[in-house]
């Protein structure tokens, strides 16, 4: 790792369409999953002998089970509207990273096997057989797409390119050719409960340690509750929040908000992960299994609400898919016993699930939070819309709420807020460069180059408007930015959680200057907060 030095692309006034460099990223391919990683998820341990037939059979199955998959493969007219919309294409210049060309790697095989023209006149219609070289190319280039769906925004047919990538990865897993980073992580979720592989005793010890920090800072016994039966709220957050910088300050921010709001909440050691990489690998059954862990935790703990922490794709899975995957949310299947049980248990007065930003926004609206914005006066803040939140979810039950609520929360706690170039924000937001299951060291070159378009917009406000803080609500974005910012001559610690901003601005008054640990002092401070 230390030996590999990559050159970041140069930043320019505006991002221009790069000169094509054929094969520029052909060498970029992630580590192949080990047999154990594959088998933990029910996939073959290594590439099976009859991989060709199984891959085509899987493609046929996907065509039947997912109408959108077949439709998206059939209707693309190669108009080219998507070509210059991909951050990986803009950052690498590799023509196979044009979304239409990347999809064509799979579409050409589909055409050969599932269309009349492709079966009979393959050369005329650009249909290809699935060879070992093609399979390797899939492993390479379908791990050069972060499933961010920016290209889909511009597609006149509304083709969801990410679904093609997901399908390709699903096929690769089915023939025993998965990606190490994603599949190893999913195995840890199934056995230990989170992406990190953080066992329950380690999680408990970490949370205790953080409670100490909170008490040192505020003088209050702010809790980080774990496995508390009968709590009202279950917080499901990415496990990076327990472990990584700057994420952990976001977690402390949630705890401060919950404390000041006076609600009862808990985390779960069984479902200590908000992320659901099952979506990244396009595996419905894996996505469902991970989601069901959260349902089980909610049922076991008897909670009335489920709140999701700062994780982009977790919120997409929760907001868009939890209801049918696991009955967490309205619309549980009538014959799903556990989902029905959960529906009876959850409090219908609150959204199910709810985002932590929605919770904090609600508390702000009610005037429940005591704030001193000037605590953030040393910061000039800009916000990065994370792709899964921006293009796959909503917030607050209002149109474009997923853009409005995070900004309203930030503006309530900071005085200096600046927006990046609009054409790189909102629905058109650019991926951080590490999303969709690509946040791994073996793809560092891709991550650095793919971050260029976002870095370009950030650099402009950093230089011209003195922005020194980049706030985000996604664990992947935070890790990716802290890694790539130095390549673009910006400080790695300028990226922070939205809830760090909130936490820093919260005022805990009635706190004696010196920490007094006597029960009565603490009790009165808590009462006056609520």
């Amino acid at each position, binding site marked *: *790792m*230390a030996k590999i030095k990559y050159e970041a692309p140069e930043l320019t006034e505006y991002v221009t369409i790069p000169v094509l460099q054929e094969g520029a990223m052909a060498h970029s391919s992630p580590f192949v999953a080990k047999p154990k990683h594959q088998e933990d998820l029910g996939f073959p341990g290594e590439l099976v002998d009859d991989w060709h037939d199984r891959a085509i059979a899987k493609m046929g199955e996907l065509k039947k089970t997912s109408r959108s998959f077949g439709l998206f493969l059939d209707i693309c007219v190669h108009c080219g509207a998507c070509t210059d919309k991909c951050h990986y294409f803009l950052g690498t210049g590799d023509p196979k990273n044009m979304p239409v060309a990347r999809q064509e790697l799979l579409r050409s095989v589909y055409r050969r096997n599932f269309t009349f023209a492709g079966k009979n006149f393959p050369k005329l219609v650009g249909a290809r057989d699935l060879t070992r070289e093609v399979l390797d190319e899939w492993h390479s280039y379908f791990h050069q797409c972060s499933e961010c769906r920016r290209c889909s925004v511009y597609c006149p047919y509304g083709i969801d390119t990410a679904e093609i990538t997901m399908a390709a990865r699903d096929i690769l897993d089915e023939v025993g050719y998965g990606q190490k980073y994603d599949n190893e992580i999913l195995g840890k979720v199934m056995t230990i409960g989170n992406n990190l592989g953080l*066992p329950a005793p380690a999680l408990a*010890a*970490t949370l205790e340690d*953080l409670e100490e920090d909170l008490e040192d800072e505020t003088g209050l016994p702010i809790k980080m509750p774990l496995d508390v039966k009968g709590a009202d709220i279950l917080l499901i957050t990415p496990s990076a929040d327990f472990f990584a910088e700057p994420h952990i300050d976001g977690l402390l921010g949630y705890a401060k908000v919950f404390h000041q709001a006076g609600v009862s909440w808990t985390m779960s050691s069984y479902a200590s992960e908000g*992320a659901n990489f099952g979506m990244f690998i396009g595996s419905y059954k894996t996505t469902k299994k991970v989601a069901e862990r959260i349902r089980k935790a909610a049922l076991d703990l008897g909670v009335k609400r489920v709140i999701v922490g700062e*994780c982009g794709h977790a919120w997409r899975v929760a907001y868009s898919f939890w209801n049918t995957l696991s009955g967490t949310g309205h619309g549980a299947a009538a014959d799903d016993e556990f989902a029905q049980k959960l529906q009876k248990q959850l409090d219908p007065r609150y959204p199910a699930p709810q985002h932590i930003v929605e919770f904090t926004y609600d508390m702000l609206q009610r005037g429940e939070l005591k704030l001193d914005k000037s605590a953030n006066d040393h910061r000039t803040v800009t916000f990065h819309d994370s792709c899964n939140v921006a293009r796959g979810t909503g917030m607050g039950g209002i149109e474009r709420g997923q853009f409005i609520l995070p900004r309203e929360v930030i503006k309530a706690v900071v005085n200096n807020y600046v927006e990046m170039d609009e054409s790189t924000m909102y629905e058109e937001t650019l991926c951080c460069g590490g999303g969709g299951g690509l946040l791994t060291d073996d793809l560092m070159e891709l991550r650095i180059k793919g971050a260029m378009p976002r870095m370009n917009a950030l650099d402009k406000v950093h230089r011209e408007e003195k922005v020194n803080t980049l706030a985000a609500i996604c664990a992947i974005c935070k890790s990716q930015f802290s890694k790539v910012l130095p390549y673009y001559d910006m400080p790695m610690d300028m990226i922070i959680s939205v809830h760090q901003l909130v936490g820093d601005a919260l005022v805990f008054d009635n706190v004696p200057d010196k920490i007094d640990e006597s029960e009565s002092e603490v009790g009165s401070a808590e009462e006056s907060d609520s």
Partner: protein
Amino acid sequence: MPSMDVNGNAVEVDEEGYLADINDWNKEIGSALAVTEEIELTDAHWEVIDFLREYYDEYQIAPAVRVLTKAIGKKLGKDKGNSKYLYELFPYGPAKQACKVGGLPKPTGCI
């Protein structure tokens, strides 16, 4: 499985150079792993590595950076209890690089 030569002995590592079996580890191997990371080990590095290995023994995972910095601060003085100090020792990131030199598995996830 690739391997690394340590004083004439082949030690198994994974494709990223992390030790395959944490029980194989000794200080010699740690020093060899540090060379692959272009780190010159000093006493300050060993203090961090020793703490990491102790923590791992107890919890089967490396500590969060926050926990690590606090523990180092308590043990070695407040001026060392910050992530800047740890990044000076392990520039690629204390979590991953110090784990590697200490023979611990690479932390995974959105980190």
